[in-house]
């Protein structure tokens, strides 16, 4: 039963990793943009939630109502007025600019909030659980995070494949010049894609802050998990990203069950093994 419990907890953790990864997957899938500052934006969202919760006395979950739109706007402005200027045939400029943003974000957060570890308390939700059997309990908060992760991926899938905006996203990702010939304003479309990615980042950041301690320097590790989930799932594939997150979460949980010190390493080993045998990930987009 221990192993069943381990796998269930791993799957639930995978929901959070999938959320970390979905924003990355979106940015890469549409703009071919690798955002090195992704993890730091997740942490920024955590701190924004902290400010909202402490200043307005709201519950962390309610803070989403403010943090998500705020990150949406930050994402739009960032892409429209900065990152769009870095996109082109050379992949180096966006890498360098987002790397610079990562350093700036970490230092600004450090300056404003100090290096003290923070956590958002969800009150009774923190310890609430559903007892499945004598040996298996599922935490309500991890379950909410997992369900949110699945809902986000499902929602984005709907947006991408059932709406005009999603069609424009895919067309622009395929061929920017031809999309412009159709009347698509690529700068606006890219900014919208980044805004949506940042809205997902906001949700991931708030849940991260509710599940675990955070400080200004934890961003790069979230970026790493996000990258691993995206690459395991296959670049540009949303359901693949969810699967990647779950595989990574289960691998880490299994590693921790064998020996607590092996948790992170087991995730990296599974990532490497999948990369060796399926370099394009498990569910790559066919047109990439």
């Amino acid at each position, binding site marked *: 039963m221990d192993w069943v419990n381990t796998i269930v907890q791993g799957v639930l953790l995978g929901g959070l990793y999938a959320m970390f990864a979905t924003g990355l997957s979106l940015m890469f899938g549409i703009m071919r943009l690798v955002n090195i500052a992704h993890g730091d934006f997740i942490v920024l969202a955590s701190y924004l939630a902290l400010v909202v919760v402490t200043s307005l006395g709201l519950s962390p979950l309610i803070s989403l109502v403010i943090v998500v739109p705020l990150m949406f706007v930050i994402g739009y402005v960032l892409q429209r007025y900065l990152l769009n200027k870095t996109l082109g045939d050379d992949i180096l400029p966006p890498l360098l600019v987002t790397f610079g943003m990562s350093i700036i974000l970490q230092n600004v957060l450090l300056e404003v909030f100090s290096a003290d570890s923070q956590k958002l308390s969800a009150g009774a939700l923190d310890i609430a659980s559903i007892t499945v059997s004598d040996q298996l309990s599922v935490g309500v908060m991890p379950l909410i995070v997992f369900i949110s992760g699945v809902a986000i991926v499902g929602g984005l899938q709907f947006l991408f494949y059932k709406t005009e905006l999603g069609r424009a996203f895919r067309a622009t990702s395929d061929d920017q010049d031809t999309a412009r010939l159709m009347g698509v*304003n690529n700068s606006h479309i890219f900014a919208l894609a980044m805004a949506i990615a940042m809205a997902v980042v906001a949700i991931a950041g708030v849940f991260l802050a509710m599940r675990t301690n955070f400080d200004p320097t934890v961003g790069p590790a979230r970026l790493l998990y996000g990258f691993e989930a995206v690459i395991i799932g296959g670049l540009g594939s949303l359901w693949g990203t969810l699967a990647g997150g779950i595989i990574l979460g289960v691998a880490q949980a299994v590693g921790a069950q064998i020996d607590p010190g092996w948790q992170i390493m087991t995730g990296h080993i599974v990532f490497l093994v999948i990369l060796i045998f399926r370099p394009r990930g498990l569910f790559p987009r066919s047109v990439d």
Partner: protein
Amino acid sequence: MSKLKIQNLTAGYGDFQALFGIDLELNAKETVAIIGSNGAGKSTFMRSIAGLLKNTPDAVQFKGENIGDLPANKVVEKGIALVPEGRRLFPSLSVEENLLMGAYSKRKGPWNLNRIYELFPILKEKRNNPGTALSGGQQQMVAIGRALMSNPELLLCDEISLGLAPTTVKDIYKAFPAIQEDGTTVLVVEQDINQAMAVSDRIYCFQEGRVSLEGKPGEVSKDDIKAAYFGM
């Protein structure tokens, strides 16, 4: 007043200049063909009109309005659609999604999905297939249909017969009368001189980025064309 007036259009890529002061006029409901050898600047010319290459505002006048400096997404809103060389279908979109992308600009007019399917019935059968899984001729139909979905007043067709079997080319050109029925002006770039002469009211020949000949198909001789085409 002419529908499209090109004045002293120069264009290129970086340091490379492909067009040197092109002048050209197109009247409403007219079909004009541009011929010329590879590298003559025909596709650059089409890309310039469509807004993919920026120019001075007055280099391209459409219905009396200077649009030479507008980006492609604004040019299509004005009523100019380009069928690009090589079709350039969106690989991750189905046939129907490719066609619907053509309507992104929301221009009102006679063209919609049903009318495109009437024009090219095979596309209705294949509407859920990926656009790039179709034969070359069918892909060209999608590319033309996609451009028509923006309800253009001026349709630019760049090398639509390139790489296609002669029978397929005939099938595609058969659709032109239906396209022109609603008053759509057509500018085609065509390497097949006979085809160009057959479909157009006037022809222009480009050579090394300059207009080397202009005339009506019945009025220019083969020798004139040979001289203009090859610079002999």
